[in-house]
């Protein structure tokens, strides 16, 4: 290596005092490739090297490798600094040519790897320092594989450390001897991840993809730490604006004044029967399979149909995992095991299994609440996912998942009074393929579902659907000033068997029907840069044993971008929902209900980390199916006590909901916080033209939530939730029916009472202990810190002489441990 000077200052030049042999790129050395790299660098007045860049890179395919090696070597050089005319040392900028000559390459003295402690992921671009005899300094930087090397170190004891903002690392002390290559792996812990490194996964909250007017997107990484959710990513959607609180927190989705049965959950575009286990304690899909969770409260794309309310889309991860990993999580409710491994370079397999033991934990609590022998549910679920990347850039994945829940009420003698069982088993294949500028996506899902209910030996109810779903969609993203397209078909079908033979819930209701629901949709997006117009058209049909129905739903959404930080969004469209098979069998004349949805709002990026989203919405619901409120229903029912419409099903109901949602968000490297508010009013008109409030009308809902990361792997969070109570119709008097020996309640003025407002404060603490090869996390999720007795449902004493409110859970110190490898 022959240093050469290019003069940049006069009259006194810097002179090399100590040259450090560069680490010859291994591949280049093996091929005997030589090179010269000219660097431009600042020599400080102290003689140390300041900022340096490659001025003239080496030629050939090893250009980058030579450049990196030259920069790393020059940083450890020592110079006699330049001097001005008075003889004082002054900083100077010089160009320095570093020649790589294969025959003169210094032998590797030590090599190693930097890995992140806990995850064992190789860390790229991390500075490694070696300090040797007489304070000799060498500096290296880890490459993309986390590997670093020092060459030509003088013999002696060397102290090697990793230095980078936000990292704590152990030091390695090595004895270097000529002719030997020492190896060492350094583990660095991200104790202050908000400093320096930006390769952590960033949670994106509130970004939306065209053509959705309002899409609230949640990434899973940090949301796992939000308070009140027990680490469940999907439960976080219940904190978003537009989502009302369901009674007893059982996880029903109440969106913009629509009923729980009016909203739907999708996984990668295909509908799934349930997402939450009983009582909403956990979701049936492990959040580690997910890339993001989106809530579409209304005015969504023509991609979605067959429901009046909102959509929650769970999107599984598209990219392969960057490493093999596994964890075992044990908490108050459940144990979860997760394993993920790459298979070759382009495939991966993930497996998760979960089993609850909440029955053992909560039953003593429920006994204390005097709920008459209610036994907490037990559940389990499992998922297996295999994914592979195709050479074309496409991906193919298969997801097999299932869930099983049981819930019982026992009498004093521990005999079962009634029991409820819900389960499903699904297989899903998803294939996404780029075709030119287009992307083609195909999804297929199929599998059985079962819901059974029993009281004693004489009462039985079940629903046993076998549902298949198929979606094939072509997408073209609009370029600037161009037109984008979304064209697809969304076909569902299967067989649906049911029996409802439960005393006190009407006559025996039984059926078995085969059905097909074809659908086609087309949605161009006209994008002129600042203005985006997305008209859409969706055709839905339903062919079943009891009726054949069809509907065409036109929709349109617009977006106007005003500058870099503000956009206005609006949407208008029709959304239709077919009657259930059970309803159609009872009245084959039923047709679909529809919602005319309108929304308008804005997204404002106030500052770098602050944003505000405001949306006003209005829903006109027409042809709502009313009647048979006395019939048994598994998951959807009006509040249990109140006047009920027991007549035949008819499309005679009307509804209206209007409201304003807002979400103020703060998202920094250390903090996730938001303030979500919903102001709304939801009404219904029954078949007789009588107006009433929607059963879940909650005029004001507020959720304030913050999670903040502290040094040393601590994280604190808190959540405050407030919600107006649901309206209800109080019992005014009662009549004892001598023949049936039951009390008949006499209700007062409809909706003349409202449950007391719901308040809950939660707090969460997380602490990670990071070891070389694994990480241990402890969390304490204190739910309902103030132990407030929130009234969830108004029940009555057996003779209706007094209200007997059912309250929510008391303070629950949910805690858990998670060990991850």
């Amino acid at each position, binding site marked *: 290596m022959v240093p050469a000077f290019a003069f940049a200052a006069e009259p006194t030049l810097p002179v090399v005092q100590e040259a450090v042999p560069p680490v010859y790129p291994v591949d280049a050395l093996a091929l005997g490739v030589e090179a010269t790299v000219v660097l431009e660098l600042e020599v400080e007045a102290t003689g140390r090297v300041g900022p340096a860049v490659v001025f003239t890179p080496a030629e050939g395919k090893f250009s980058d490798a030579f450049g990196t090696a030259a920069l790393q070597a020059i940083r450890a050089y020592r110079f006699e600094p330049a001097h001005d005319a008075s003889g004082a040392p002054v900083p100077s900028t010089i160009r320095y040519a570093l020649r790589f000559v294969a025959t003169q390459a210094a032998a590797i003295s030590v090599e190693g790897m930097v890995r992140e402690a806990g995850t064992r992921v190789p860390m790229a671009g991390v500075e490694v320092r070696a300090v040797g005899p007489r304070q000799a300094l060498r500096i290296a930087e880890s490459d993309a594989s986390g590997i670093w090397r020092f060459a030509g170190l003088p013999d002696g004891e060397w102290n090697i450390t990793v230095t980078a903002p936000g990292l704590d690392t152990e030091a390695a002390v090595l004895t270097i001897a000529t002719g030997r290559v020492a190896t060492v792996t350094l583990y660095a812990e991200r104790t202050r991840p908000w400093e320096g490194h930006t390769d952590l996964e960033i949670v994106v909250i509130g970004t939306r993809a065209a053509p959705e007017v309002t899409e609230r997107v949640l990434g899973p990484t940090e949301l796992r730490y939000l308070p009140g959710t027990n680490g469940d990513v999907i439960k976080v959607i219940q904190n978003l604006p537009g989502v009302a609180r369901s009674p007893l927190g059982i996880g029903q989705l109440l969106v913009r004044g629509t009923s729980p049965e009016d909203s739907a959950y999708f996984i990668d575009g295909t509908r799934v029967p349930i997402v939450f286990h009983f009582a909403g304690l956990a979701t049936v899909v492990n959040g580690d399979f997910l890339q993001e969770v989106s809530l579409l409260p209304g005015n969504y794309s023509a991609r979605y149909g067959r429901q009046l309310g909102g959509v929650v889309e769970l999107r599984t991860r598209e990219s392969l995992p960057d490493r093999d990993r596994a964890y075992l999580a044990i908490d108050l409710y459940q144990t979860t095991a997760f394993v993920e491994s790459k298979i070759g370079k382009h495939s991966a397999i993930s497996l998760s299994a979960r089993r609850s033991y909440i029955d053992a934990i909560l039953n003593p609590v429920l006994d204390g609440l005097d709920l008459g022998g209610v036994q907490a549910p037990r559940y389990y679920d499992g998922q297996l996912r295999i994914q592979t990347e195709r050479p074309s850039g496409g991906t193919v994945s298969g997801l097999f998942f299932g869930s099983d829940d049981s819930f019982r009420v026992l009498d004093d003698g521990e005999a079962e009074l009634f029991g409820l069982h819900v389960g499903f088993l699904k297989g899903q294949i998803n294939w996404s393929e780029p075709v030119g500028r287009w992307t083609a996506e195909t999804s297929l899902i199929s599998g059985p579902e079962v819901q059974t209910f029993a009281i004693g030996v004489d009462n039985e109810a079940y629903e046993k659907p076998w549902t298949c779903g198929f979606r094939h969609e072509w997408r073209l993203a609009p370029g600037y000033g161009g037109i984008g397209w979304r064209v697809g078909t969304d076909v569902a079908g299967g067989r649906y068997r049911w029996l409802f033979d439960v005393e006190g819930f009407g006559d025996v209701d039984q059926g078995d029907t085969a059905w097909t629901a074809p659908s086609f949709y087309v949605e161009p997006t006209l994008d002129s840069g600042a203005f985006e117009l997305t008209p859409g058209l969706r055709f839905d049909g339903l062919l079943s044993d009891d009726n054949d129905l069809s509907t065409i739903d036109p929709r349109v959404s617009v977006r106007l971008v005003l500058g870099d930080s503000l956009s206005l969004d609006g949407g208008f469209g029709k959304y239709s929902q077919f009657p259930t098979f059970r309803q159609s069998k009872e009245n084959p004349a039923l047709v679909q209900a529809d919602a005319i949805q309108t929304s308008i709002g804005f997204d404002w990026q106030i500052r770098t980390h602050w944003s505000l989203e405001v949306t006003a919405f209005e829903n006109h619901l027409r042809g709502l199916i009313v009647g048979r409120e006395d019939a048994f229903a*598994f998951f959807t*029912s*009006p*509040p249990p006590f109140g006047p009920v419409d027991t007549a035949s099903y008819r499309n005679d109901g009307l509804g209206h909901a209007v409201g304003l949602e807002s979400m103020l968000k703060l998202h920094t490297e250390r903090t996730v916080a938001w303030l979500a508010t919903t102001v709304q009013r939801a009404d219904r008109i029954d078949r007789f033209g009588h107006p009433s409030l929607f059963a879940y009308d909650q005029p004001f809902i507020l959720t304030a939530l913050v999670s903040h990361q502290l040094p040393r792997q601590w994280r604190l969070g808190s959540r405050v939730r407030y919600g107006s109570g649901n309206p209800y119709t109080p019992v005014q*008097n009662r009549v004892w029916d001598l023949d049936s*020996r039951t009390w008949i309640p006499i209700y007062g003025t409809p909706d003349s009472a409202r449950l007391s407002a719901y308040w809950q404060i939660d707090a969460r603490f997380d602490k990670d202990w990071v070891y070389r090869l694994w990480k241990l996390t402890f969390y304490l999720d204190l739910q309902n810190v103030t132990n407030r007795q929130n009234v969830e449902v108004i029940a009555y004493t057996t003779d209706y002489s007094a209200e007997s409110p059912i309250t929510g859970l008391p303070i629950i110190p949910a805690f858990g441990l998670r060990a991850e490898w």
Partner: protein
Amino acid sequence: MIAAFVHGCALPSLGGGGELDGLQVMSVVVDPPLIRPGDLPSAVAWVADPTEEGFELLLWTCTDLGQGCLESGFPLAQWTNTPLVADGRSEPWLPPLDTAAIPPDLTLTINVFGLACAPGVCPEIGLVREHDSTVGDLLADPFGFARTLPMEGTSLVRREVAATGSPATLENRNPQVDETPTAASYSHVRTGAIVPLHFRLSDETDMTSNGFATCGTIADGIWTGHDLDLTFTAPDAPASCEIWVTIEDGTGGSAVWRGVSVIQ
């Protein structure tokens, strides 16, 4: 599911554990429970008044064909009655039902309502006594009427009986009480005593029973064929307890037994 959950927890019962702590119409026994052409039905109400503050009783009928009570256009005296009550049992009321007017192919459902009110709570009963026709519209909507009543100090019950115009319809009778506990077995007992109560009844159908007491406790009845056995447990302090047993045959037929036990 929520409905099932909550309703499933609320099993029917007159009160909690058979305890009577307020004014309660225990039964209205209509004889015969299935009214056929030529029958002269009667109605007897049984009323428990644990507080012994006194009460007023109103009985009325409502034949509902879907558009309110047929009786609303008729004089009050034909479909209302305010009988006196002694020892928990009212005077028989013989509603002037014209069974011959019912077509042979028609069976009417007649609701007999019984309302007991603490003194001064229900001025409507006084209006009935005075044959004030203005109260007729109110009584012709029994559930709407109930909505205007206070829950405290009132007890409203409904008995459903059928009236058929077909003479070929099989007769239905109230359960016949063939054997009741001897007065010596329960009339004077010691505090905390356990008193077996034995009944023998006969009826065409299976019967069910409920036991109630104004003090002490009474266990659920056990049927062995037509024999019914209940157990009354006297309170731990001296008192005078009313013991009630109501029998239903599931087809409108009913029977009532009342006994008074002095606890010493």
